[in-house]
């Protein structure tokens, strides 16, 4: 399937999904759907660096919260429409992503991951001590109750996140089949061999970290408007990192559909658990699933399906 056709289908699926969601019996569905969509973006963005290029980033919360706090800072300065906030947040987080890319010059494997985790801690400390965006007290955002045409504001946020999710998946899918995607995969497999094959590994790693960071920042930009109250502890919550890593792991890391499946699966379970049992159960569910998948299906759901298909073919 060509790239144009994929984009068309992705947009169509998004539009149909939005049409169906308008039939939801109450606002809660948008509230929950927004979170699942946000995780589709985060998981897909994480996978561009973690799955395609092989650099495990534990600092998801840093990029996500940076996006959210860009919005808070701009809200205090001059309220802007959310799509504009997302663009600005994308640039801010993208620049930080570029900086993280330079870490890969000296740090590989677990050492890179530890550095990203440290970066998130540093960032949280900086934000906690920055009074302008509320410091440790947090910041309140007043959002309009209604928007034209769509009605409720949450429907508007839901639509925006849906569009971002479609764009993110489109980007991930285009990368996968491109020269860039092959280059990323060669870095994941063997960086020295990639370099010997003519792949400019540093430049490609910088592209991956910048793009991944920018998309995470964009996912975070509408957050203050969604929660209306944001403090560093919730913005930098570890669960963002854990979920964004667990979702591609559970779905499958080598292609675009893995993080999508993982986010839909895990995100939906978490939302269901939140309303039926308790929200504290979320991380426990993630942990158990993660252990289960690492043991039973190390290549995720996509890997399981691929293996089943291969077996079925072998039998014939």
């Amino acid at each position, binding site marked *: 399937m060509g790239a144009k056709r994929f984009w068309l289908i992705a947009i169509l699926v998004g539009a149909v999904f939005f049409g169906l969601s308008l039939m939801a019996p109450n606002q809660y569905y948008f509230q929950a759907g927004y979170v699942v969509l946000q995780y589709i973006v985060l998981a897909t963005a994480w996978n561009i660096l973690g799955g395609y290029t092989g650099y495990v980033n534990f600092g998801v919360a840093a990029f996500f919260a940076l996006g959210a706090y860009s919005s808070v800072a701009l809200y205090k300065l001059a309220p802007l429409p959310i799509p504009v906030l997302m663009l600005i947040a994308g640039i801010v987080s993208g620049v930080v992503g570029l900086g993280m890319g330079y870490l890969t010059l000296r740090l590989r494997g677990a050492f890179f991951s530890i550095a990203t985790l440290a970066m998130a801690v540093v960032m949280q400390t900086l934000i906690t001590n920055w009074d302008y965006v509320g410091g440790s007290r947090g910041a309140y955002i007043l959002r309009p109750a209604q928007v034209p045409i769509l009605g409720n504001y949450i429907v508007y946020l839901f639509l925006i996140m849906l569009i971002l999710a479609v764009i993110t998946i489109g980007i991930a899918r285009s990368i996968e089949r491109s020269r860039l995607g092959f280059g990323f995969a060669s870095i994941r497999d063997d960086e020295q061999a990639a*370099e010997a094959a003519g792949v*400019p590994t540093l430049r490609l790693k910088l592209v991956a970290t910048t793009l991944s960071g920018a998309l995470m920042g964009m996912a975070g930009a509408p957050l203050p408007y969604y929660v209306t109250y944001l403090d560093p502890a919730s913005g930098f919550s570890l669960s963002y990192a854990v979920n964004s890593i667990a979702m591609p792991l559970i779905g499958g890391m080598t292609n675009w559909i893995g993080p999508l499946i993982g986010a839909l699966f895990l995100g939906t379970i978490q939302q269901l658990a939140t309303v039926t049992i308790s929200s504290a159960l979320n991380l426990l569910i993630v942990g158990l699933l993660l252990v289960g998948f690492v043991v039973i299906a190390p290549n995720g759901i996509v890997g399981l399906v691929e293996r089943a298909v291969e077996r079925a073919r072998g039998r014939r």
Partner: protein
Amino acid sequence: MAALLEVTDLGKHFGGFTALDGINLAVAPGERVGLIGPNGSGKSTLVNCLCGTLRNETGSVRFDGKVMDGLPAHQRTRLGMARSFQLPKPFVSMSLADNIRIPLLYTVNVRRGTHLAPAELDGRCDELLHLVGLAEKARRRPRDLTQVEMRKLELARAMAAEPKLLIADEAMAGLSHSEVDDILALLSVLNERGITVILIEHIMRAVMSFSNRLVVLVAGRKIADGLPQEVTRNPDVVKAYIGE
């Protein structure tokens, strides 16, 4: 004829250890140079300095009329210097065809006027795998390969970059007698196609039958350089290998 590769006074230290010291070497186009030396004599370090994996501290490397010093490895590959690794480093998650596709996409396709269309790329992958006798396994993963096939894949990947110079770093280590002949035949074919070959090898039978010139490194210094028969009779070389 001007030298294809010209190394002058190349030196490399690891902390207090001198790995390479004042290496001078010129390789003419089309030559088959064997590079030998005991373990730890600096052969692989020299290869790494030539290819840009390591930076040499002193001296310089000229290749095809251009100064290579400071250029990263991928740019040297693009300029026509390809290498195979001592321990094969295949791209494990990809099919053999895709292993070949990477250098095609990142060397041939970035050079001016040699861009390949998708169908041509597929054709070129098959062609290269056919050349090394792996065409049948184009869709398989590297994990399905034997040692000798892995070496062949390594060479095919180096060839995909359409190099002027191929540096084969112990492409035959650990292979059986007939497998060594296989790889030697392959290297000869490549050389006849006009590619200059530097062969780093421990297997003397292979080096002697392939090279038309022999360079000997001992403890980071070049101690002999000349016709294979003469070099192996050189008293310094005999001393380094067998002792007094």
